[in-house]
């Protein structure tokens, strides 16, 4: 079993088709929707966590690519401007996935991008605009 967090960009002509439903059935996957938005002229955006066999997840992503869906890895899309962060830790208590954690030795906030679920709570909560989510 592996887990992948991906950002899917749907072209507008696909937004009325049950693509995710088909994909999870075909490749026996579990999925968790982290974020979804559909704006008909531009298409749709879906942030998903996919779980399944390594081969199945890979093939599912290839299938989605064939349908002309652009796929990005989620972790690449969330960044911290390290020069802006003052390490106060106000983000730590609202981060739902322990991606932001206070290091009790130096009292700096560690950001583990691989744990991030892109809920964007930290982006709103950071008083210093240090967290940037690019989707």
């Amino acid at each position, binding site marked *: 079993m592996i887990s992948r967090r991906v950002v899917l960009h749907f072209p507008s002509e696909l937004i009325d088709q049950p693509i995710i439903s088909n994909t999870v059935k075909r490749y026996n996957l579990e999925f968790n929707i982290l974020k979804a938005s559909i704006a008909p002229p531009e298409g749709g955006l879906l942030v998903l966590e996919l779980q399944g066999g390594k081969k199945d997840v890979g093939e599912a992503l290839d299938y989605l690519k064939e349908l002309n869906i652009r796929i990005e890895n989620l972790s690449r899309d969330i960044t911290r401007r390290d020069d802006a962060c*003052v*390490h*106060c*830790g*106000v*983000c*730590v*208590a*609202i981060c739902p996935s322990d991606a932001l954690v*206070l290091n009790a030795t*130096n*009292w*700096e906030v560690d950001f583990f991008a691989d744990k991030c679920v892109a809920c964007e*709570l930290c982006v*709103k*909560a950071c*008083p*210093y*605009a240090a967290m940037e989510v690019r989707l």
Partner: protein
Amino acid sequence: MPRTIQEINEKIKAGKAVVVTAEEMTGIAKKKGVEKAYQEVDVVTTGTFGPMCSSGMYLNIGHTKPKIKLGGGTCLLNGIPAYTGIAAVDIYLGAGQLPADDPRNKIHPGEFRYGGGHVIEEFVSGKDIVLEASAYGTDCYPRKELKSWLNIKDVNEAVLFNLRNAYQNYNVAVNLSDKAIYTYLGILKPRLGNANYCSAGGLSPLLNDPLYRTIGIGTRIFLGGGVGFVAWQGTQHNPSAPRTEREVPTRSAGTLSVIGDLKGMSPRYLRGVSMCGYGASLGVGVGIPIPILDEEMAFFTSVSDEDILAPIVDYSEAYPQAKPDILGEVSYRELRSGTISIGDKTVATGSISSLSRAREIALLLKEWIEKGEFLLTEPVERLPGKESGITFKAFHERPVEQ
């Protein structure tokens, strides 16, 4: 034998003063006892870094040719209105000021991406900012419009002057309601989803001198990366707050008004702040040295996070409705553990104040003193203490008949 500040300064000049941070002092006193700590240590440095809304800068921009009188006119710095109700070319910009076209909370919660605090950060970092002014024109000041780049190195004076900084203790904010709320202590998730606090705890200046024995008017301090002074007690200074046996207030108590030359400061310790749904502010770094004059000051500066209790306040109801109710008290040691217990619930804690930067400030101030670059001062006047009877009064509202 108590020490005097003069004696300590002689030691500093000779490079012989023993300077430790407030955290180090706590460790020394724990290990060796307060008496020994007093004998060994001359100065304890403190530090704090957090959003301090009652902050701002004043400038004298110099006279234009022909002259303009901004007083009574308008002035924008990077689009943010500055106060002009003073003389011709003096202006004051507050940290919380917003541009006229900011949507505020029209779409709640507003973002407040750029305000007075952000202008101060850019100005102190040496960036050019845009000054745009209009005036009504007089015989002696005929000019009516001015639009120009402005740089900190070109103005006569650039002074940080903060009305209330370095609060001695503060509330821990929670939300008992069913929806998220957006406060100056951050985003508070519903039903005790998180608890936010804002103090450097055992490193915080006034918590290490709880009775204001050494910190007073005229005290030389670290301010925003440069040197400043305590100008006065801060607004809402409340020395009469309840205290523990070791005189540590258990509510927000004393405050400081501070002043210093902005030209010597750094954007590392003056940072624009955007509090979602609340407004703009300025993150300010303050550090204050405390002379260890006697055993009592050694005792006071040995305070640790577990000795300092803060009240847990519901910001969905009690705080906005000015009700005195609290949900309990919790120590900074518990707050720093990452979770606190409220009733039978475990609640994650978030800090608005940066401990890592507070430490950095205390260490930097220690270094300045050790190098002999920073001397201690005798207060010109004491701050009002608990014997003054001064309290924090609520507004006395008297409706005006129409």
